[in-house]
């Protein structure tokens, strides 16, 4: 606990220090980066020690804010969510310091590092807070700090638009959370989380309402469909390490909130599980489909965050199903898989975003259609990106596979052991997971193939260069973790055990039993995969020894027998995705602009597709237009005269006074 407090203090002091020294870019960068890294290191030690010992540590002081108390606690669940926070804060700081070392950012470093450190501190407070007021304050600081980080390049119009969309959606979510906490607090009599814990039976029939409020409020931060619209706007606008931090860990605070809510509202029903799995399935499938349609790498990755949040929801849904039907193994595998995916996604998504940052840095574009052939020019970035891509697709032996496999195993177990009605959600979960997995592979084949293979499609791409060491090593660390978690998969249930015990009221022995089953399966899979890897290495080595001393010739990729091939004859990102997207044209409508070549010797012709967000265009835009039309009718209230404003206040006060006294 003391380490966590120390981490908070360091982050705050370093952030303010960085802002005060903003005149000197070197100093402010050193302070901001140093504070974030050292704070993260200290906090990491604190979180790991609690994970290892399993004994929660708390601190409680009184606070003069009404209904507030400054109580914080570090238990297994908090410690588990803190692991990626500290890991990514440290790595993103190292990466960011180098990323922002260009002269054009020099005047903005002070505020950047202030808000960076504030963001990391507020995320820690959100996760350890044990009072609703403290939680909401940290939640709000987190939202504002990330808003200022997203709008670093605020002179660009697209960044302004993204910033507004993010600010509005995060505040709508927070408004719902206020309602949620007030309702919960009025039931339990206090805004301390301890009192929520015991409020389960007092809440009664309103539990479902609270559950839905939590889903909307926390889900907006997490980015579930249909409240995901800020993700594909904010991530491309933000600097890459900020995208990594936001997509990697900040949206996970939404998941954290939902898991906490599930602990408070015990006795979930099968309908809840169906809701979670439904949301998860829709988010996952729609997320990956929209990702497939994107031509901008960071937008593509943002939609993959929506997809992965969907997978996490599927896991939580299977866990809730286990609780509702009293099947411990489902609970263990569902929650275990979902929570492990939280950690995994933060690792590989950050890896991919940092890779996107390197592509932008080296090739000066994120548009897939202008890249190509970067693997030869940026071997480090390309290889690490490949590791991340394989991991996010959920392919063995990397970490994404482990968590998705646990969810699969839980869902299949449900199909076998539950009756027909209760099994429906798990069947849906299996179908959704399978569809998501296949489409994700298609999507990352497209992303990696178009960017890193083939021939450069533009001048910039052919002049691309590898990034500096400080921008490569964070990626190497994350890629190594992807591999490590994949190989140590049989041990992962051990790490998850205290967390699951806290989320679901189960006997410790039961959890261990359920885990033993999956552990053996995972061990076999990892063993086979290691053998495959060995075989592949052997073949590669063989190829090399065979080839030495023989004549070798290099040829152009995509030669295809043409006499004069050009890079423009390659598959484009749009054409690669088209066969799949045509199948789902009813859901993902892509407006096309097509000028047909005319005549025997056509001079010009063009084809392009747009990729608007279907939910934003069909649901949110009309809804906001209606709201605007209604609200414009009240515009006459805003006269601009101070006298009238004071009159409004006076009338309100007097009416209230008379009303109470009548």
């Amino acid at each position, binding site marked *: 606990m003391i380490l966590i407090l120390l981490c908070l203090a360091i982050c705050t002091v370093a952030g303010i220090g960085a802002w005060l020294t903003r005149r000197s870019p070197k100093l402010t960068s050193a302070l901001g980066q140093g504070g974030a890294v050292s704070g993260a290191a200290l906090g990491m030690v604190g979180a790991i020690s609690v994970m290892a010992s399993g004994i929660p540590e708390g601190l409680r002081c009184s606070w003069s804010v009404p209904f507030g108390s400054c109580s914080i606690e570090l238990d297994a669940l908090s410690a588990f969510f803190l692991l990626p926070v500290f890991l990514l804060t440290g790595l993103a700081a190292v990466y960011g310091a180098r990323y922002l070392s260009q002269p054009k950012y020099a005047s903005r470093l002070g505020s950047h590092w202030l808000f960076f450190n504030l963001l990391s501190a507020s995320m820690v407070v959100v996760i350890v807070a044990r009072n609703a007021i403290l939680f909401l304050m940290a939640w709000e600081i987190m939202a504002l700090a990330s808003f200022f980080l997203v709008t670093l390049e605020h002179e660009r119009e697209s960044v302004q638009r993204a910033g507004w969309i993010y600010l509005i959606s995060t505040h709508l979510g927070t408004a719902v959370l206020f309602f949620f906490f007030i309702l919960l607090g009025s039931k339990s009599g206090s805004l301390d989380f301890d009192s929520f814990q015991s409020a389960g039976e007092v809440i009664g029939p309103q539990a479902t309402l609270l559950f839905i409020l939590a889903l909307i409020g926390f889900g907006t931060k997490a980015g579930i469909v249909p409240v995901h619209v800020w993700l594909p706007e904010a991530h491309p606008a933000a600097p890459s390490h900020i995208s990594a931090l936001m997509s990697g860990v900040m949206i996970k605070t939404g998941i954290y909130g939902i898991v906490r809510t599930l602990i408070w509202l015990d006795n979930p029903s099968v309908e809840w599980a169906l809701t979670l799995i439904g949301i998860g399935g829709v988010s996952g499938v729609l997320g990956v489909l929209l990702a497939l349609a994107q031509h901008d790498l960071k937008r593509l990755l943002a939609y993959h965050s929506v997809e992965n949040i969907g997978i996490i929801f599927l896991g939580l849904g299977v866990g809730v199903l286990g609780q509702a039907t009293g099947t411990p193994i489902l609970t263990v595998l569902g929650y275990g898989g979902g929570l492990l995916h939280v950690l995994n996604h933060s690792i590989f998504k950050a890896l991919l975003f940092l890779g996107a940052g390197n592509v932008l840095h080296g090739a000066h574009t994120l548009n897939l259609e202008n890249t190509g052939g970067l693997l030869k020019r940026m071997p480090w970035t390309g290889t690490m990106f490949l590791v991340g891509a394989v991991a996010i697709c959920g392919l063995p032996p990397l970490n994404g596979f482990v968590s998705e496999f646990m969810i699969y195993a839980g869902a299949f177990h449900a199909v076998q052991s539950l009756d027909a009605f209760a099994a429906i959600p798990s069947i849906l979960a299996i179908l959704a997971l399978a569809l998501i997995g296949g489409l994700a592979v298609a999507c990352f084949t497209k992303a990696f193939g178009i960017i890193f293979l083939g021939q450069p499609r533009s001048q910039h791409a052919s002049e691309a260069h590898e990034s500096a060491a400080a921008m490569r090593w964070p990626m190497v660390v994350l890629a190594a973790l992807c591999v490590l978690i994949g190989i140590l998969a049989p041990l992962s249930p051990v790490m998850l055990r205290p967390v699951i015990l806290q989320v679901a009221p189960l006997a410790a022995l039961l959890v261990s039993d359920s885990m033993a089953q999956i552990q053996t399966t995972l061990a076999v899979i990892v063993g086979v995969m290691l053998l495959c890897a060995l075989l592949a290495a052997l073949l590669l080595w063989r190829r090399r020894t065979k080839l030495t001393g023989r004549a070798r010739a290099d040829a152009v990729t995509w030669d295809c027998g043409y006499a004069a091939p050009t890079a423009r004859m390659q598959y484009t990102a749009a054409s690669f995705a088209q066969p799949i997207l045509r199948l789902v044209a009813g859901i993902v409508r892509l407006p096309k602009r097509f000028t047909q070549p005319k005549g025997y010797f056509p001079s010009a012709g063009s084809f392009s597709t747009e990729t608007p967000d279907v939910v934003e265009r069909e649901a949110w835009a009309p809804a906001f237009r209606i709201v605007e039309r209604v609200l414009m009718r009240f515009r006459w209230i*805003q*006269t*601009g*005269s*101070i*006298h009238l404003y004071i009159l409004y206040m006076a009338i309100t006060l007097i009416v209230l006074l*008379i009303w109470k*006294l009548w």
Partner: protein
Amino acid sequence: MQDLLFVLLILTGFVFLGSGRMQFGIRTVALQGILLGLIPLLGNLQDLWARLTALAVLSLAIKGMVLPYFLTRAMHKSKALHEDNPFVGFTASMVVGIICLGGSFWIASRLPFIDSSQPKMAVAVSLFIVLVGFFVIISRRKALSQVLGYLVMENGVYIFGVAFAVDVPWLVELGVLLDVFVAVFVMGIVIFHISKSFDHIDTDQLSSLTG
């Protein structure tokens, strides 16, 4: 004796509502301040007399002399000698004042008091003074009038405090005095800036700033 003071306070309220000349308004507010300062002295002094006297002297000095002096200076500087064209005319203001007075007495009669021995008259008067201040802020154009309205409102709050918190006067008084100080300070800045940049101090011209 206290009732006489309260009646005088009500009268100052009406005079203030009906005054169009700034100088006269400032003097009325100063007179009101002096009357207020006397209230604690007229109660049962008992062993608190030293404190209460000090308080009365301080209040007299600030509300009766310092503030009027500064306000007069601000008036001459900004050349706002007269409230030319108020939103509500002076006669109509008096009518509103009468309604406010009736309303205040009604509210005072309905308020649930902890101790029935508390003077209802003081509550009614304090509410009336607050409402008068509020009304002047709403209905007058010049920023200086609004400062005066604000001061009158503070006076109302002060009466309420004196009537109810005789036992802990320091807290209330210091709080109120601090409020007044801050208010005048802020308003002074506002007046100065408005007259600087807009060449007059009609606050309704600020409406050109709406979106």
